[in-house]
């Protein structure tokens, strides 16, 4: 891959437009399969509804559960699912099936960095799938569920930064799991496992502080909390001062670590490829 960067390419106007072109193509694909995109989004709503109704019934009895009030909890549920939907199940499937079906060879012969290509594709698709579903969820949140505004303007700014870091964190996690498809053909099973682990450890299904005792410390320090729990915590103003710095620092450190791991992992995975009938 280093050959690509050292070869002077006259026609290519630089690195960014190449990856941008890939992102735009991915976005166009998401438009082409828009019924799919919408159905995927609605499928996500079922658990939002389940959680909403369950917690509503619970808060009818009491004003506070853990550190949550009812308005904080419903804000949490909506934002959590909205953020987790930025990179949805279909996106993860696409990454895995490219490996499973052998379409990956196209990426392998491209004179581009595979990790960055994939990030560009996921970001492109997310602009459509993710942002559409996030917008619907937000509209639902403001119109029907009445979510809280960010705790402060400062929290709002940090929230946006934290969401961006969380997005790349989820991408890297899914990317690393997808690489396992070089060794197994059961992409669906891997995808379910990935989804379940993210749903629990990121704090999407239940806020981390309410998790059962044995699971809480794991979720507390795992990189996955950066996908949901950290940004939503920032939004709600749950952490301040030192705690806030610690949370964002943890999120950023995991991001760097995961990126390094992913960058080293894919060239190894590429060596495991067997082309049938080649």
């Amino acid at each position, binding site marked *: 891959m280093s050959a690509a960067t050292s070869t002077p390419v006259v026609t290519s106007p630089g690195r960014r437009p190449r990856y941008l072109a890939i992102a735009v193509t991915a976005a166009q694909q998401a438009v082409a399969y828009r019924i799919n995109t919408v159905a995927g989004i609605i499928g996500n709503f079922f658990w939002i509804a389940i959680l909403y109704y369950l917690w509503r019934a619970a808060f009818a009895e009491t004003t506070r559960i853990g550190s949550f009030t009812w308005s904080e909890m419903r804000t949490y549920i909506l934002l959590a699912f909205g953020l987790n939907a930025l990179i949805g199940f279909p996106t993860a499937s696409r990454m895995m099936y490219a490996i499973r079906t052998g379409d990956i060879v196209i990426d392998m012969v491209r004179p581009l960095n595979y990790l960055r290509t994939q990030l560009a594709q996921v970001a492109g698709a997310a602009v459509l799938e993710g942002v559409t579903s996030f917008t619907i969820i937000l509209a639902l949140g403001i119109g029907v569920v009445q979510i809280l505004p960010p705790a402060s303007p400062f929290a709002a700014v940090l929230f946006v930064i934290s969401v961006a870091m969380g997005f790349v964190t989820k991408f890297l996690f899914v990317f690393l799991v997808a690489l396992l498809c070089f060794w*197994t053909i059961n992409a669906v099973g891997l995808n379910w496992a990935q989804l379940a682990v993210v749903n629990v450890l990121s704090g999407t299904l239940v806020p981390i502080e309410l998790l059962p005792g044995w699971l809480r410390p794991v979720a507390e320090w795992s990189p996955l909390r950066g996908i949901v729990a950290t940004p939503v915590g920032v939004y709600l103003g749950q952490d301040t001062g030192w705690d806030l710095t610690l949370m964002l620092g943890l999120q950023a450190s995991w991001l760097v670590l995961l990126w390094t791991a992913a960058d080293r992992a894919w060239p190894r995975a590429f060596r495991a490829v067997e082309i049938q009938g080649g």
Partner: protein
Amino acid sequence: MLTLDLHRLRFYARIYAKLILLQLRAAVEYRADFWIGVVGAVLMNGAGLVFIAAFFSRIPAVAGWSAWEVATLYGLTMIAYGLREMLCDGIWTLRVQINRGEFDRLLVRPLSPALQIVTSLASIHGVGNVLLGLVVFLTATHRLELDWTVAKVLWVLMTVVCGLIMVTAISFLANVIGFWEPGTQSSFPFMVSNVVEFAKFPLELYGWGIRFLVTAVLPYGFVSYYPSLILLDKENPLRWLGYATPLATAAVTFVTAWVWRKGLARYQGVGH
């Protein structure tokens, strides 16, 4: 007349058993993939159980349902769903088969196309869902100190069989769309199939829209909730609907059969 029908039924049952066993055996062949599938499926449902554990550690009961009562619903739903994945998952291949023109092959064989399509896939990972569902259901009923009479055992068996037929029929209904909309990629059937998630929790929690959906449109409520009203002896104005479980299942099956025939009649092939 009746003896003749019984004879045919036995014939179909034998063919079905042979074909599905073949599929299951083929699926187990890939040992590592089998385990990844089972673990993935179990984790998916395990995540929901983690939520229930977290939720009920803070709240003793919700809408009059305790943690173990909710777990009963969760377990029953998982068992029905897992059995479908193992035994009747073939309908999910319909859209791909139509799209690739492979469906023609089914029509020229001297066997019912519905039977052939049902047996065209066995998702072995369903075994994970069935086992986890059983563990959850049995633990829950044990904790609830359910008094197991013969009638209750029969009632649970009936519920599971009806549940399997119900989720199979609805997945047929969702996938038959392939006759009208033969794209291989569609989230629509998955979305319809996912409505089953609502049946894992007591229906009185939801607003009327969702309740109506899972009672009258896609009656997943009969997989777990309504029969459980009777099993767990819940006081509920809709308790009588529990007894309608076999009726509701039969109704959905008939509608599905009708739509399936409409779809078959409409099928034109892809021009081979």
